[in-house]
């Protein structure tokens, strides 16, 4: 794969390089994160987890992937 086919996005505040045709679903699969334990925000909008395949990522997109941790 040439550099041309790669794009840079921000995932949880960190710059990440992915394939240019990646969907949110591809990203979650690549990161090996269990879908039933997370929520995803795409450019400040919460995305229904059933619709992740429909969101195709573009350059400089910001993705937040959150889960539950211990808290009071």
């Amino acid at each position, binding site marked *: 794969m040439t550099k041309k086919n790669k794009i840079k996005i921000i995932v949880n505040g960190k710059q990440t390089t992915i394939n240019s045709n990646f969907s949110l679903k591809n990203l979650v699969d690549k*990161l090996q*994160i269990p879908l039933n334990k997370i929520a995803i925000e795409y450019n400040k909008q919460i995305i229904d987890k059933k619709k992740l395949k429909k969101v195709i990522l573009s350059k400089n997109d910001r993705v937040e992937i*959150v*889960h539950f941790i211990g808290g009071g």
Partner: protein
Amino acid sequence: MKNKDKFIIAKKNYSSRLIVGTGKYKSMIECAKAVKISGADIVTVAVRRVNISDKNKPLLMDYINPKKITYLPNTAGCFSSDEALRTLRLAREIGGWKLVKLEVLGDKKTLFPDAIETLKSTEVLSKEGFKVMVYCNDDPLMAKRLENAGACAIMPLAAPIGSGLGIQNKINLKIIRCQTKLPVIIDAGIGQASDATQAMELGCDGVLINTAIAKAKNPFEMAEAMKFAVISGRKSFLSGRINPNLFGSASTSNRGII
């Protein structure tokens, strides 16, 4: 004997009046064990970024099963209504949680709640169908406003979060308890078991404890102490204490005295 003393929040009955936080523990194993010993069936949890660089990092859900224990997502660390709303909407998306704990802080040093931002958030969340348990100061007027805004439980502080100072304003807490039909749950400031008992003896419906258990020298023993403290305080409250009297009243009859 059938226990008729029910602890109901947003139309759901819970067996334990002790709610525990899951922060500040040395490990998730320690946290899960303390939760089990405490007998709590609700735990508070926070929403944070997934660590994408360490995929093997343990997940809370692997240690505390949300199908067996009710997760109460909170907004710890939020200092504005926008941040709190964003956090709880994300929490709902994780697993459909509607019962949430709203906590909008106003000051980094005292961790006192921002009453205006809290009220604003309560109104919005209630309209969106959330069942909002609200952390607030021990202010009866604000507690009433939160109730009117749609809160499902009032959670006044006993003292600043994590301070362990115990109950500082018994009168206000009692007034809050007397003026509302909602459950009143003491949130923050409990330091030792007797504080939890005292909260329950005031008539409060429950207690939320995190630091006092997690940071105790022996969290497991403290978890058990808190469990019994809450049960004891509740029983004491329901039993109806004697009237306090300035002077003595002998326990033994004088009849037949020699």
